[in-house]
């Protein structure tokens, strides 16, 4: 068991709480930097997807996990970012500029969606975002002169100032830099007054308001930041997948994103990436398992949906903190070795509380 002896107030907000953090995260970073030389091509591509989805998940985590606003339409922001990037790349804009524009545009759209969030909450907000996402998807399909409609559009390769990031290794590094940057930005935000305000709003709007937090401002800001990050993710996604069509950004994608953060662990930065790893590796695992299953089950097209649904149900019922929560429990078990108790992380039993009067 590690006891932190705090001698300065700065230690409370340090990114790395102790030497162990520095060591382990440094090792992780080294592994990620070395990945192009150590992993085969196929796994490198999967890792790139994990990083991209991790960025989007971070955005959604900021909104849902830390501000307590649930969006069932995040794929729309992903789509706005991806299409902006595709259109600007086709015009030959350098990558950093076009990605910034994609992020800003997504953030603007996010702020716009955030406006109803000021009046409605809970499930109403979910429905507002869902409706908005449906409208955006339809808009992408119908605005054929720009997006190519349902026929889809091809995306040019990534380039900036005469450099071309054609190879998968180069593109991987772009994704790595972006995701590390986004992670650091979110961590930094969360230890700043803004992040504290987000968490306060999540825990209780009434108390946050009475502490002088401007609800409208912070909710809109949270939406904008979250959508902006989805936009960055979308820009990278466009270059990775190389071909965009509106149905990639439909309601199922939005639900997949939500599923990602719920399984990863709502309310933890780790959760975004753990969820992304789950979302990307699960189809591979299912493909692997297919060979060992009876043909009637293994070859059925609905297998993936059933597995996703069951995993989601199991996590909501038994592990509400997600994969990260499971890791916390394992870690605590080792830290306290003989003294871990069953009830240590037990959910508090509570009766149904009414949201209607909030």
């Amino acid at each position: 068991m590690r006891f932190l002896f705090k001698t300065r107030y700065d230690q409370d907000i340090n990114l790395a709480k102790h030497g162990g953090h520095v060591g382990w995260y440094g090792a992780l970073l080294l592994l990620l930097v070395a990945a192009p030389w150590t992993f085969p091509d196929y796994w490198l591509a999967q890792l790139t997807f994990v990083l991209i989805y991790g960025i989007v998940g971070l955005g959604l985590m900021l909104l849902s996990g830390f501000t307590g606003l649930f969006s069932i339409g995040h794929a729309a922001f992903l789509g706005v970012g991806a299409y902006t990037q595709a259109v600007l790349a086709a015009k030959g804009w350098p990558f950093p500029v076009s990605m910034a524009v994609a992020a800003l545009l997504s953030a603007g759209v996010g702020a716009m969606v955030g406006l109803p969030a000021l009046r409605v909450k809970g499930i109403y907000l979910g429905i507002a975002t869902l409706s908005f996402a449906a409208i955006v998807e339809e808009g992408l399909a119908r605005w054929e002169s720009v997006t190519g409609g349902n026929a889809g559009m091809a995306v040019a390769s990534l380039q900036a100032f005469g450099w071309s990031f054609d190879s998968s290794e180069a593109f991987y590094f772009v994704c790595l830099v972006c995701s590390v940057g986004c992670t650091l930005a979110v961590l930094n935000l969360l230890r700043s007054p803004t992040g504290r305000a987000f968490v306060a709003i999540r825990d209780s709007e009434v108390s946050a308001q009475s502490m002088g937090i401007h609800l409208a401002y912070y909710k809109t800001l949270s939406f904008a930041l979250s959508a902006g990050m989805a936009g960055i993710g979308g820009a990278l996604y466009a270059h990775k997948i190389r071909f965009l069509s509106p149905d990639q950004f439909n309601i199922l994608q939005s639900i997949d994103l939500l599923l990602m953060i719920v399984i990863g662990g709502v309310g933890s930065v780790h959760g975004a990436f753990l969820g992304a790893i789950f979302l990307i590796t699960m189809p591979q695992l299912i493909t692997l398992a297919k060979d060992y299953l009876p043909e009637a089950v293994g070859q059925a097209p609905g297998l993936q949906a059933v597995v996703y649904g069951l995993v989601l149900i199991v996590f909501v019922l038994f592990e509400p903190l997600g994969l990260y929560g499971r890791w916390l429990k394992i870690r605590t078990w080792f830290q306290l070795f003989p003294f871990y108790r069953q009830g240590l992380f037990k959910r508090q039993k509570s009766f149904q509380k009414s949201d209607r009067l909030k």
Partner: protein
Amino acid sequence: MQLAQVLQVLMGGVAQGCIYGLIALGFCLIYKATETVSFAQGDLMMLGAFLGLTLLTVAGLPFWITVPSVILAMGLFGMLLERLVVSPILGQPAFSIVMLTIGIGYVARGAITMIPGMGTDTRALEVPYKGEVLEFGGVVLAVEQLVIVATTAVLCAALFALFKYSRVGIAMQAASQNQIAAFYMGIPVKRLNGLVWALAAAVAALAGLLLAPITFVHANMGFIGLKAFPAAVVGGFGSLPGAIVGGLVIGLVEALSGFYLPEGFKDVAAYVVVLVMLMFKPNGLFGESLRKKV
């Protein structure tokens, strides 16, 4: 433009609106009783339609036995679902239950797709009144649509009577207003929650049986549930007459925008309506506006 044509479009809208309304009714029942939102309602409808299809074609039961048995079976299924997966996490944040029901929806859709020889097909449900039309002075009305409207009206009357006059209905009202207080008064709140889920699933199954003749039975027909959310919001979440009225509003707006506006507007009309509604009247047409007094 003839009047007859407009009337036919309106009738189509009303019929479609009734379906939305019936699914929205399920949302509202569950929301009112347990303050949770079920995203699985559309998929329960799909299950009901598939069950009906199986009983009719594979088991070869006559139509008039199929309908009540499907409704009964789905009611039991809803109660089972509540007992097994929903009740353990009551009292947790509403979002957990949303995710849980999304998971249930996934499993239902995937499981149906996995049934060999049936899951991936789209089939028509053979009902006795299929394809028949009635004509009133130049207005051609499909019997399927009339049946939908009539059944919805009967169901609404039955539900109204249930909540107004029966002991169970009044107990449900009490539980939906304040579960703890109802529990202290000796109302078996847990059993009522199971009943409410059964009722919602039964209504969804009925909606599925009504919808199946005018569209097709396939695994993704549950996505129509996504359009029932706007219906529920427009009516005011948690208001039973509001759900039907909201469904009618959405159905009519959709039908009219499909008729008058360019292609593409039909699909988003419901969502535009709900966004406008949320901006200007978030509590819906019939919603109760409650304020917390400190």
